[in-house]
């Protein structure tokens, strides 16, 4: 799972490494869901100076910026997308658009995919917009 804490970590902290693996598998499952829905994955873990975009996907005229959240319960996952994170994702999306000018005229959407344990991932289309 990506973290915006940029604390230098000395060695591989076992707890953080576990969280990273869990997040990675959640992202894989989210990407699979998007592919099943007919999206093409344009980028995964796209890094910018202001933060990271978990998944960028395209389908015809739609461009998706997806934030993936993995928690034991889906309500916890939904609450984990805080206002600060939304701002970070919107700022990161600006970087993406700056480097891909062709995407600017598409229908741009910010989605959240909530992944819980072994349940089916929940896809929230248009979870937030750029005015926050």
């Amino acid at each position, binding site marked *: 799972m990506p973290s915006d804490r940029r604390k230098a970590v000395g060695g591989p902290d076992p707890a953080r490494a576990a969280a990273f693996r869990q997040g990675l598998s959640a992202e894989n499952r989210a990407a699979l869901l998007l592919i099943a829905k007919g999206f093409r994955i344009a980028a995964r873990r796209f890094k910018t100076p202001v933060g990271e975009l978990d998944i960028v996907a395209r389908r015809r005229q739609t461009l998706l910026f997806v934030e993936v959240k993995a928690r034991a319960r889906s309500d916890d996952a939904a609450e984990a997308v805080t206002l600060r994170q939304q701002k970070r994702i919107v700022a990161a999306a600006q970087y993406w658009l700056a480097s891909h000018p062709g995407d600017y005229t598409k*229908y*741009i959407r910010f989605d959240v995919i909530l992944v819980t344990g072994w349940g089916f991932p929940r896809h929230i289309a248009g979870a937030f*917009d*750029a*005015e926050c």
Partner: protein
Amino acid sequence: MVQRVSTVAFEGIDARAVDVQVQVAAGMPAFHVVGLPDKAVSEARERVRSALIASGLALPARRITVNLAPADLPKEGSHYDLPIALGLMAAIGAIPSDALTGFTVLGELGLDGSVAPVAGVLPAAIGANARSEGLICAAACGPEAAWASPEMEIIAATSLIQLANHFRGTQVLARPQPKVREVEANPLDLKDIKGQESAKRALEIAAAGGHNLLLCGPPGAGKSMLASRLPSILPPLTPAELLEVSMIASVAGEIADGALTNQRPFRAPHHSASMAALVGGGLRVKPGEVSLAHHGVLFLDEFPEFEPRVLDSLRQPLEIGEVSIARANHRITYPARFMLIAAMNPCRCGHADDPGFACRRGAPERCAADYQARLSGPLLDRIDLTVEMPSLSAADLMLPPPTEDSRTVAARVARARERQGQRYAQLGLTDVRCNAQAPATVLEEAAKPDRSGLVLLREAADAMRLSARGYHRVLRVARTLADLEGTETVTRLHVAEALSYRSLAEEARRAA
């Protein structure tokens, strides 16, 4: 593409046209409202978003910009919800894009997509009619809007879905009908008051000529009782007056269920009223009690208990019949041509005029002078009729009820008013309807007393040291007395009676 919808912004009772421009453009999804919106207007986007979702539409994932032009005019109020929502619906193709041309739109939205009533629909409808446009508003406001013109097209809907269906032609809405509020028979009748014949006479004169009246008497003499029966003897509003009164009531949001009434307004604010409450003002520069009492009665009970500063703010509206409110962001003039009926006790304990009364504060005269000094001379000078109401004895109450009821008095008042209206219409003054409104120059000609009356007036003016305004006020009342009697000339008798109503005020003024 930019979708345009026209709506209005209120400046006093005038509705200024405002153009709502909705643009759905490529870019990051966001919803912005620009054009000097206040808090209620910028919150519109949350209501619009929810209302559209409740109506089965989604906001497009595009950059939505709403501009309210002219952009330098401050926009306030919640009536921008509906034009913004309809503009958006037209922009995303939920309704035909030409459906809204030729319409002025105003209304508030609920989160469930319902259209809620807003204040100021009548002025907006009249403004729209002047631009030969139709009006779209809430169903509850429809009957009010229908008063503007019988020809204009009015669509009054309860929800966004109804409006969409109307434009698609699947459920066409009927034009609302103008509604008149049912006037419940006034249970207050002049017949209920026993004794106090001189006060009743003064009330009739005040009603006939639109004069200001001050009732002065001990507690329990029936001052408030008398004043509350004034509406029962006043003539109904003429159509032109009705429109003016309703426009102010509409802007103030005081019209219930969209129904207008031809009853004259009767406003009786409590004596703790602030200056802004009385003359108008506040953040949104709303009309005050003086404007809400336009063409009607402003009744101030316990007159000296009002703050002196507040009372003196009445001086300008009493004189010119309108009130100009100037604030940092607004300069607004509201009409305020009202009859002032004031009631007061002669002193704080209330019994200064009772024979044999000993006041705790010493001499009753001093107590009374102290109390009456709260009223400024210039204000008292603007009151045409002052009547003293003595307290009633038990013997008065045992008398059989008087036979003259409000209906008979109202008929006399109506005849006198008709006579005045005709006279001023002949002189080309169409907006002057009673003697109290006549300008001094016209009055000198219309109310010229006969020779003996003139002699009396000159002597009295010298003896009482009448001010120029006081002199004209006496003439006015004398003219009304002649009108009540139905005679063309003002005689010595009329002048004498008019002077008698003046003398009390002069006395109080000298004491002050």
